[in-house]
């Protein structure tokens, strides 16, 4: 038992090192620069003039994306939540897995869709729709992030105990029950979803840059490219960091004590609820937008690619990038599990250390991706460590720093849902550590392990913000290749790659959902 606790502590320390080292080094570099007489650089921390405008624009864009994602995502989640048991109920988790489609693919699809629409409008003598700048960035980021908001809202709705809904239905109308009981109980997860969408939007520069919109996170990247000074980039990122940390602490605070239980085998509202007609229309509208969200990329990509041979040709031409992406993503997925599990165990604590761990796990989500890349360069770009610096370990480390905290949260949800008595029983009948792990703990944790590793794999495969800075010379990930292609406009080749990424992401997601769904079948059933 003591050995197991020591191992967990060791892995938890490793988690802190992997996740915080890039930021820690940037802090250390800051101290060195200040003592070296660069105190005037501190002015970079206070945005003024153009940079203040950029910060305000980034904030406005991200708030609008988060608000839109919640407005569409919550009603869409209610539609999905009400699906009956069986295959449709299991497949609804695909909504969350649509997050796996990188925003750049949405950008390509929507550019092509609007281009086609404009051609039709112009041939009919009407003016085309301008699809550039703020509006286009907002729409594409919104479409890319709706599944995340809907998915986390669905987690929230699923965690509401059916008895709580039933007892409310006996005393008040169904709409009253929804607004006074169901939505307030699901609020932590809904708020967390909005927070994540905001963070992803404000730290992303890939979509705005494709639509010629300058945002604050792009400025950090540009500063580093221009000066090569990590400290200057770090100081410039401070206002953004403050905003993201503030938003994170506000949006994730309620999540700490929220129940993240998986679905029990009970249907919410077994007797059809009577909601006002306008709510019915809202639910149908949001479900339609969710369908558009996935249909537009698929239809556009399939029609642009044209044929199977064109797709296989573009996949073959990018085989080295595909293999490199798989290598990076699979390494990050596997390496993240032990350290994320250790962090998730620490998160279960109810004392002050538990609160500290909650901060340690959620705070890294606020760090802009370019800063992680710049921090990693500061650590490894030294004479004795340059073998690591020039290797494919760098993107793996970047993905671990960015996504291991998310894996920890996924595992926390699984740990909370596992019956503690089962773990206690495993301890009582403990014969051999390895046997206990293989026969008790791993099967109990399997859905969480599958979800966490799939999440890290997909996010690492699509990571761009940090990878673009630190990818070893001569190597590029598939996302990097797509991103560079996109700057020259859509083509059959890039559409073929995007379609391959989408299909792989969806098939992987389907596989994970089926594993998780099958594993949950033995869940407790209501007494009949």
């Amino acid at each position, binding site marked *: 038992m003591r050995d197991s606790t020591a191992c967990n502590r060791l892995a938890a320390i490793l988690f802190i090192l992997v996740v915080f080292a890039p930021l820690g080094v940037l802090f250390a570099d800051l101290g060195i620069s200040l003592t070296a007489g660069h105190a005037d650089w501190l002015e970079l921390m206070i945005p003024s003039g153009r940079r203040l405008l950029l910060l305000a624009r980034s904030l406005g864009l991200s708030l609008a994306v988060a608000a839109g994602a919640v407005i569409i995502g919550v009603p869409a989640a209610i539609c999905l939540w009400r699906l009956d*048991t069986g295959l449709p109920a299991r497949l609804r988790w695909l909504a969350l897995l649509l997050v796996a489609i990188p925003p750049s693919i949405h950008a390509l699809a929507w550019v092509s869709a609007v281009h086609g629409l404009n051609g039709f409008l112009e041939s009919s003598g009407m003016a085309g729709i301008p699809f550039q700048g703020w509006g286009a960035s907002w729409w594409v980021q919104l479409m890319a992030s709706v599944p995340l908001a809907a998915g986390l809202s669905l987690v929230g709705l699923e965690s509401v*105990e059916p*008895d*709580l809904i*039933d*007892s*409310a*239905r*006996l*005393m*008040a*109308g*169904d709409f009253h029950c929804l607004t*006074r*009981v169901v939505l*307030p*109980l699901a609020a932590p997860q809904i708020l967390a979803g909005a927070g994540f969408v905001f963070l992803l939007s404000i730290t992303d520069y890939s979509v705005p840059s494709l639509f010629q919109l300058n945002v604050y996170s792009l400025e950090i990247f540009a500063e580093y490219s221009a000066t090569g000074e990590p400290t200057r980039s770090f100081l410039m990122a401070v206002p953004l960091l403050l905003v993201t940390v503030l938003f994170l602490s506000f949006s994730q605070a309620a999540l700490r004590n929220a129940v993240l239980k998986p679905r029990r085998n009970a249907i919410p509202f*077994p*007797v059809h609820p*009577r909601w006002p007609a306008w709510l019915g229309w809202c639910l149908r509208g949001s479900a339609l937008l969710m369908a558009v969200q996935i249909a537009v990329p698929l239809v556009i990509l399939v029609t642009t690619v044209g044929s199977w041979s064109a797709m296989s040709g573009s996949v073959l031409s990018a085989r080295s990038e595909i293999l490199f992406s798989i290598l990076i993503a699979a390494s990050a997925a596997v390496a993240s599990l032990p350290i994320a599990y250790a962090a998730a165990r620490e998160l279960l604590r109810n004392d002050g250390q538990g609160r500290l761990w909650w901060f340690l796990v959620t705070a890294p989500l606020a760090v802009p991706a370019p800063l992680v890349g710049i921090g990693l360069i500061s650590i490894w770009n030294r004479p004795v460590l340059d073998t690591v610096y020039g290797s494919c370990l760098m993107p793996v480390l970047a993905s671990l720093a960015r996504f291991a905290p998310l894996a920890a949260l996924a595992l926390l949800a699984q740990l909370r849902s596992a019956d503690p008595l089962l773990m206690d029983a495993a301890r009582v009948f403990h014969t051999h550590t390895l046997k206990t792990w293989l026969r008790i703990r791993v099967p109990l944790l399997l859905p969480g392990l599958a979800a966490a590793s799939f999440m890290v794999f997909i996010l690492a495969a699509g990571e761009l913000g940090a990878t673009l800075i630190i990818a070893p010379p001569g190597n590029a990930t598939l996302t990097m290749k797509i991103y560079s292609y996109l700057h020259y406009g859509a083509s059959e080749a890039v559409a073929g790659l995007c379609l391959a990424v989408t299909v792989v992401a969806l098939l992987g997601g389907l596989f994970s959902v089926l594993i998780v769904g099958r594993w949950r079948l033995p869940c407790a059933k*209501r*007494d*009949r």
Partner: protein
Amino acid sequence: MIRVSHVTKFYGKARALEDVSLQATTPEPLVILGPSGSGKTTLLRLIAGLEMPDAGEIHINGSPASRPGWALPPHRRNIGFVFQTPALWPHMTVAGNITFGMNGLSQDRMRDRLRELLDDFDLHGLGGRYPDELSGGEARRVAIARCLAPEPRYLLMDEPLTNLDRELKRKALARIACAVRDTRAFLVYVTHDPDEAGKLSGRVIFLDAGRVAAAEPESGAPVP
């Protein structure tokens, strides 16, 4: 009155109830006894309108309440329900939980009714607490007080005293009996404990494997 006629209910392929008929026309408590999995909870949920029957009909107060494909909404049935778990809304205080169903009452009347219920169930001073700050016994009493708060005509209780010690159970049963007597509500009480059934001195129906295995006749009326 409650009349259940030839009701059958399936969950997927599993049959929970088969051709169950019963009625409660007099205000004497109706106690449904039966082992786990016998369909007791399903029967109560069907009466409450939380599930829809696959066959048969349920009438409440002489009007149709449920039939296959149609069910009167639960909140229009004038029913109070105590679940096996207290099922208190964790984001509301004890007072919020109890007053949730008191629709159409003035603020003064609501306050008086709340005070009355808190006193009746030894919950004085707990109105501002949240469910996670209550003991198991307190939470059970809040659940019963919440059920009684809107003064429903019909009370459905699904093993409401499970896991309470003998003394608490005795006190709670006395309070339930007293409340039923005062409000003249129809009580349908589900339990698997024959002692508990005996203490309520009501008419007993025994349910087994989804069927009525035995039933005491209603005073003055034959069991259908």
